[in-house]
């Protein structure tokens, strides 16, 4: 089978996993490349852009007179701007492809941990920066976690430590930056074909009813002795206890006695919301006047009608439809005229 995605290595044995972990840990403590100089010295225009965008009115950032009277003795940059002075800018990182950071990433990619999200930024400041300061950043891989699973997926937390030095090579601030390098959780598989409906539990006492349905007839059961009509089907007449019965063909119409609309739990065979109606089937002509003939109720689903048409008392037409190649069931179709009994 061809597949364009790179093969993901699966460390299926504890030994393989341990070897992978050990290889990962070998990167901890390594400096990821040459120290990176800030492209520009700390400067008022960049400070102004930032504090305007953030709406920060602290006068020590832009007002020379007030800043001079503060404990800072003059204009300083917002401390949280530390990272901004050494950002790559619009062209992005220019690092080569063979430093320790890239090699660590290749190792993580080889296990499928290709996605990334920043999780923690921890900055500490030795002093505030002033216009004219020129920074250099050094980055060290600080720690790599064992495999962790979060809401996003499974992967490894990777922490780097950025140390910022001034022109005198004095440390002015540090940042511990943690990312989660992960394999996203598998998305739900695309639209699988719906499984067929659950099968009815059939017995000697009801199999004939489904057989009749398969032949296109909606039936109830009547006592062959006293004529009482009953449904669901059963072995004995509740009135005279006779075991002999007749099949009674019922009209394909009725009235909604009650209904529910199922939302949950969802069974994959059905579409939701799923109306379930209890239908008072119109009395049979063959057993007119017999007890029970006007009390035949059946549970079924609806077809071809919006949920809004459901109403107690609504007239329905019943159709027998194939739900899959070897099963037919009755469905209620609500009368389009909206007539109620």
């Amino acid at each position, binding site marked *: 089978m061809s597949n364009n995605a790179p093969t993901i290595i699966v460390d299926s044995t504890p030994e393989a996993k341990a070897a992978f972990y050990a290889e990962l840990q070998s990167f901890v403590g390594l400096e990821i490349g040459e120290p990176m100089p800030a492209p520009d010295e700390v400067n008022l225009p960049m400070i102004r852009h930032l504090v*305007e*965008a953030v709406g920060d009115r602290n*006068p020590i950032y832009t007002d020379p007179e007030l800043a001079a009277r503060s404990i*800072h003795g003059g204009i300083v940059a917002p401390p949280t701007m530390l990272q*901004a002075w050494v*950002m790559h800018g619009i062209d992005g990182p220019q690092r080569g492809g063979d430093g320790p950071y890239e090699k660590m990433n290749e190792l993580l990619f080889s296990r499928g941990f290709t996605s990334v999200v*920043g999780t*923690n*930024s921890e900055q500490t400041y030795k002093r505030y920066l002033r216009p004219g300061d020129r920074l250099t950043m050094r980055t060290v891989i600080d720690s790599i976690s064992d495999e962790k699973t979060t809401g996003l997926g499974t992967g490894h937390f990777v922490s780097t430590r950025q140390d910022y030095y001034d022109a005198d090579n004095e440390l002015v601030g540090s940042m511990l930056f943690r990312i989660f390098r992960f394999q996203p959780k598998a998305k739900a598989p695309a639209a699988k074909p719906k499984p067929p409906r659950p099968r009815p539990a059939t017995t000697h006492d009801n199999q004939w009813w489904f057989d009749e349905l398969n032949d296109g007839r909606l039936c109830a059961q009547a006592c062959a002795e006293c004529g009482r009509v009953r449904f669901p089907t059963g072995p004995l007449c509740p009135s005279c206890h006779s075991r002999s019965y007749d099949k009674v063909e019922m009209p394909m119409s009725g009235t909604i006695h009650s209904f529910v609309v199922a939302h949950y739990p969802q069974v994959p065979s059905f579409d939701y919301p799923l109306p379930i109606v209890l239908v008072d089937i119109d009395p049979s002509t063959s057993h007119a006047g017999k007890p029970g003939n006007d009390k035949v109720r059946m549970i079924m689903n609806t077809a071809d009608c919006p949920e809004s048409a459901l109403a107690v008392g609504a007239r329905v037409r019943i159709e027998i439809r194939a739900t899959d190649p070897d099963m037919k069931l009755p469905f209620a179709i609500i009368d389009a005229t909206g007539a109620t009994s």
Partner: protein
Amino acid sequence: MTSTLPDTRTFASVTVGDEIAPFELPLTRTLIVSTAIATRDYQVVHHDPSIAAERGSKDIIMNILTSNAFAGRYVTDWAGPNSFISSVKVRLGAPNYPGDTMTISGSVTATDDATRTVTIAVKGTNSLGDHMNATVEVVLP
């Protein structure tokens, strides 16, 4: 130019448990883009909605440097100009999308007499949940 420096809160006036008034930040598209660019962060997910969508994000999102900046601003707005922030530690959560509002709130969780340092827990929440949980240390006069 204003002529007086705003007051700065004194270390002696602060008690553990003190609440800082919450601050509501409307997350406009302009805010998210202008702060990203002002921090030299040109990652497309911070300014280009169509590419952000292609990469699986609902929209552009605020960048981390800006979350840091707001944690810092929130504390210095409360502390005043003669304060010194010694650390800002942020744990990130739900992204800040345009059109939402981030409410920043905070309270004093510790004070250290020796260094006059006040520790403040800062929380930024949006309609999705916690955007950030930050710990900011500030030295007061």
